[in-house]
């Protein structure tokens, strides 16, 4: 069979990248790929098949007790930074107690506040997501700032600030659903 070219050529500058700083209490599955200046806090769970590559945009921050499920991709554009909670600049900031579920894509510049839930296969790119937001599945969030505590319905495409400003608040039923999905992955943490 003729197969020509590689889908993802190796980055020639990889050897010069900073080493990730990962708290010893954090679990990183052996099949996950974490490169560059990535700072990961306490009790974080990085599931199989996750790719966190700070090879273009960097650094990345992932706060305590956050959960990154199977096949999540975290990457950043070379240009564009967000202010983290420590006032420093990051390509990707992910706060504490955040759940990034299966196949989600967080592409910097991006800020995801504490206690957010990102549903299956959703994308956050060039955006700021306030604390406690519930993003359901198959959502695209791009070029917007979303206030704290908002609910983004499955399949939404939020790409203008007007849309972002009109989002409804997350309800307790949404938070219950989110914790149900998070629970699905908790067994792996043990």
């Amino acid at each position: 069979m003729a197969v020509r070219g590689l889908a993802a050529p190796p980055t020639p500058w990889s050897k010069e990248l900073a080493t990730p700083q990962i708290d010893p209490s954090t679990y990183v599955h052996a099949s996950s790929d974490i490169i560059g200046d990535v700072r990961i806090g306490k009790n974080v769970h990085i599931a199989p098949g996750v790719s966190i590559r700070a090879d273009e945009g960097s650094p990345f921050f992932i706060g305590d007790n956050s959960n990154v499920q199977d096949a999540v991709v975290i990457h950043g554009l070379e240009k564009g930074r967000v202010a983290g909670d420590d006032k420093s600049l990051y390509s990707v900031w992910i706060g504490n107690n955040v759940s990034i579920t299966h196949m989600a894509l967080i592409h910097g510049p991006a800020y995801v506040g504490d206690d957010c839930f990102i549903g299956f296969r959703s994308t956050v790119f060039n955006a700021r997501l306030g604390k406690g937001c519930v993003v359901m599945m198959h959502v695209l969030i791009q070029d917007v700032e979303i206030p704290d505590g908002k609910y983004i319905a499955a399949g939404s495409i939020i790409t203008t600030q007007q849309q972002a400003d009109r989002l409804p608040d997350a309800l307790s039923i949404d938070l219950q659903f989110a914790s149900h999905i998070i629970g699905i992955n908790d067994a792996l943490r043990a």
Partner: protein
Amino acid sequence: MHLIPLQPPSESQARSGGDVTLHPSAVVAAGALILAEADSRVAIAAGACIGMGAVLHAVGGEIVVAAGANLGAGVLIVGTGRIGSNACIGAATTILNPAVGDGEMVPPGSLITGSTPARA
């Protein structure tokens, strides 16, 4: 429809973890990830095709991919349930707790979650 971009395969191998049974005639493309939690299992029957970068993650029971079923690239199956024989799941589809009938066709990019809460 917003088409979710497919990720190129990060590696040429597919990987599995936990109690995963793969029939010798089933085929699995590059970058697929098949995981069964401690109390769960995944069974993939004869002639099934699992596309590039698909993720199957069994939680709380069994995921069965029946004979001749086809999962397109980037399909995500989570929870417990069955993909019927000769069913086709279009690329980039997400299914929570699947109940896909024999020969059923699921359009690409679909989101099927039985238990999403209703909002007032």
